[in-house]
């Protein structure tokens, strides 16, 4: 018998992926848990582990193949013992105990249990059996969530559980299906792509006068999400100048006392901390619009834009409102490093409640970012620089930075955004208040 290995859905938004690299070849023996390929999704490169055992019979998709739809067979294993999904065991279990116990003792000795298992034909692999990690091992998920996810073609590994101890429950799977994480029947064209009816040539740019760089998964995702956000979300910017001399002094003080160079904090770490603290003071700004109502988030999960080769990604500091500066700093360093290596897991860059984008290092004075849906706000941070400031009747020199808060007007109106900025400005100008 042979088992097909299918293209997995490695994130809720994934519809197709690129088979970046095969790590096995025809004839190799594969065991459950072996990494057999690297798959490039819209956001990251991920490893594909075998669920089943067997010998690689054929590789159905060549290395480098793009746009492989999820659930497409990509390889075939031969001669293995298939591992069945946990739910499929019930028919066999139901067959044996049907006879009354009293008859069992009167008749011939009951067959030893081990024979019964051996006699039963190995269950056929379910057509939709999902490759990837065996979902039974480490993941806490309810039986109902497992079943509904399996039928919708959603990998539990891509979900964040909202039940006790992070257990994945039905509502998490239903939310993923609502987000479009289910097996797509006929993948719709990304809205961003449809608005491009005219070719470059029609616009007077001669063919051959440029090089065409194919769109990878990340570029396509950025194009689609930014188009949707800028077009569909009624947004507006609010800009304020903030003096940062006290912040710089506080940072110098903290770093002078730092135990090692690794424990030094950056201005950006302080901005993350202040943004989270401001969200606690102004919780209305920590919100998302949904058709059912305004979701007011319990914690400040701060997404921080990190530029990487070929695009950008926004790793998240979860519950930044509860974390100390040093924890934020350590996590940010780790996340940024792994982001640049495209090694982030989906749960590390999906689902923030507020974003920060900092272009200060390029000397940008002020800019207004595009909202990262479904977040209600994104903060754009400009360069810190010495500027003349009027104080009373005098002109003095102070360090300033200009920040702009882009708000989703459906959740955050002008007054809420302004109140958040006041809270943020106060925290930056009086950093000791972050201790409160």
């Amino acid at each position: 018998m042979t088992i097909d290995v299918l293209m997995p859905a490695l994130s809720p938004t994934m519809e197709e992926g690129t088979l970046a690299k095969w790590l096995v070849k025809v004839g190799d023996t594969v065991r459950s848990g072996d990494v057999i390929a690297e798959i490039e999704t819209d956001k990251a490169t991920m490893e594909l582990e075998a669920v089943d055992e067997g010998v690689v019979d054929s590789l159905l998709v060549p290395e480098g193949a793009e746009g492989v739809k999820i659930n497409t067979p990509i390889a075939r294993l031969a001669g293995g013992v298939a591992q069945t999904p946990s739910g499929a065991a019930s028919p066999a279990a139901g067959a044996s105990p049907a006879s009354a116990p009293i008859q069992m003792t009167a008749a011939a000795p009951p067959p030893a249990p081990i024979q019964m298992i051996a006699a039963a034909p190995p269950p056929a692999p379910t057509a939709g059996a999902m490759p990837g990690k065996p979902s039974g091992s480490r993941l806490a998920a309810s039986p109902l969530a497992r079943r509904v996810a399996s039928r919708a073609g959603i990998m539990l590994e891509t979900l964040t559980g909202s039940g006790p101890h992070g257990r994945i429950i039905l509502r998490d799977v239903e939310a993923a299906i609502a987000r479009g994480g289910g097996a797509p029947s006929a993948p719709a064209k990304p809205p961003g792509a449809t608005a491009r009816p005219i070719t470059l040539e029609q616009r007077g740019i001669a063919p051959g006068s440029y090089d065409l760089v194919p769109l990878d998964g990340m570029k396509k995702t950025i194009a689609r999400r930014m188009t949707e956000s800028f077009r569909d979300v009624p947004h507006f910017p609010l800009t304020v100048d903030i003096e940062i001399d006290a912040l710089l002094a506080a940072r110098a003080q903290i770093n002078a006392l730092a135990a090692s160079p690794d424990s030094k904090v950056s201005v950006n770490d302080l901005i993350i901390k202040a943004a989270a603290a401001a969200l606690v003071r102004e919780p209305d700004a920590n919100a998302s619009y949904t058709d059912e109502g305004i979701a007011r988030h319990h914690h400040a999960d701060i997404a921080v834009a990190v530029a990487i080769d070929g695009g950008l990604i926004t790793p998240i500091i979860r519950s930044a409102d509860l974390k100390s500066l040093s924890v934020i700093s350590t996590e940010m360093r780790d996340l940024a490093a792994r982001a640049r290596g495209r090694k982030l897991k989906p749960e590390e860059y999906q689902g923030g409640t507020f974003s920060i984008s900092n272009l200060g290092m390029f000397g940008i004075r002020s800019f207004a970012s595009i909202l990262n849906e479904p977040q209600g706000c994104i903060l754009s941070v400009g360069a810190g620089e010495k500027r003349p400031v009027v104080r009373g009747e005098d002109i003095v020199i102070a360090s300033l930075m200009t920040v702009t808060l882009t708000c989703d007007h459906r959740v955050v109106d002008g007054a809420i955004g302004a109140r958040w900025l006041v809270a943020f400005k106060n925290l930056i100008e009086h950093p000791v208040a972050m201790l409160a």
Partner: protein
Amino acid sequence: MSAADSFDLVVIGAGPGGYVAAIRAGQLGLKTAIVEREALGGICLNWGCIPTKALLRSGEMFEALDHLGALGLSVEGRAYDFDSVIQRSRKVAQQLSAGVAFLMKKHKATVIEGSASLEPGSGARGVKIALKAGGERRIAAQNVILATGARARELPSIGLAGDGDRIWTYRDAMVPKAAPKSLLVIGSGAIGIEFASFYRALGAEVTVVEALPRILPQEDEEISAAAQTAFERRGLGFRVGATVKSLTKSKAGVVAQVEVDGKPESLEAERAIVAVGIAANIEGLGVEALGLKLERGHVAVDGHGGTNVPGLYAIGDVAGPPWLAHKAMHEAVHCVEHIAGVAGPRSLSPVPGCTYSTPQVASVGLTEVQAKAQGRKVKVGRFPFRVNGKAIAAGETTGLVKTLFDAETGALLGAHMLGAEVTEMIQGFALAMTLEATEAEIFATIFPHPTLSEVMHEAALAAYDRPLHI
């Protein structure tokens, strides 16, 4: 105001919602005060859940004497001393109320006896208490939880109001001087049915009047029908689809004018119990001045008990149905954890409902009609007690278990039980639903043999056409 008068949390009402809130707050280190105008434990412990169970126990045991012959036993000279039955029920209530006082002390909650109201203009930060002992005390609160409960709904315009003599509310029905020879029970919800069951057990001629077309209208239709049959076998009478036009005192007792299918009818009895629902206790709390939002007579709350007034929360009966003590306790814990900032994800556990009649009724989740109204395809399983070994041995063969599964996903949508001890068993289905079990996990669970609970297993198997013992 001194520090002694300033609290992180003030709970108004010491019923099952309020005192559990105070316990959880103590565990989480909140400085807590709890204000009670009457008795610790509230209606549940003093005038509801607990003392009625004491009464019902006396009734059940007395009625069981009728069936001793079937067990090969006989007894002579059976009788009851009504006063002792009532006194035992009161002692049980007192014992538990004292237990709550101990729990408050253990968790360092300051108990203030009196009637609380929120001071106008203070948000929910100032609480004034008219002390039971006389005088007044003002305290400051960071947060206030309203856990003031509810009382019997009365409709005085048609005479559906307790007079403490012949027309009783639940409270009068718990402490009468003598057991009535005949009784009208207006309303067939859990409270009405339990009193009907108790007084019938002591030999009263009982007629239950229900305006809706079936008794226990909150239960699954099949259970309502099977329960009515079982009660009728015990000699209870029912008038369903009967609208009460008036209830008045007569020379001998009470007389109710009702209309059944458009035809007037007159029902007479020595006494009547009014059990036509309950009304939230929101009066005298000063909430009007705070602009507290209400919804169909109860306080409007979000998923954490939060109201539209910052810092003001409401739990239990005052925050709306179902009016059940365990719902209040569950909300209490979540609300306090939310206030303390340590709340986990909100539980999606369904609220079971229990009626402690003979036989008992218990249910959790959706009824068949509700499930179908949601557009779900359902698999229905039924299994009777009459073929269950333990039920036959114990002489408890009345009743059935009905299960509802989603035909697409195998999710357990609801379970409905009628029979002996079903109120003790329903938690098995509640646990299965909370854990999001499918039919496969219930099938795979080993139920001990011989027990009544095997009927639960069989009812699940029956939904998939594979019951074993029928």
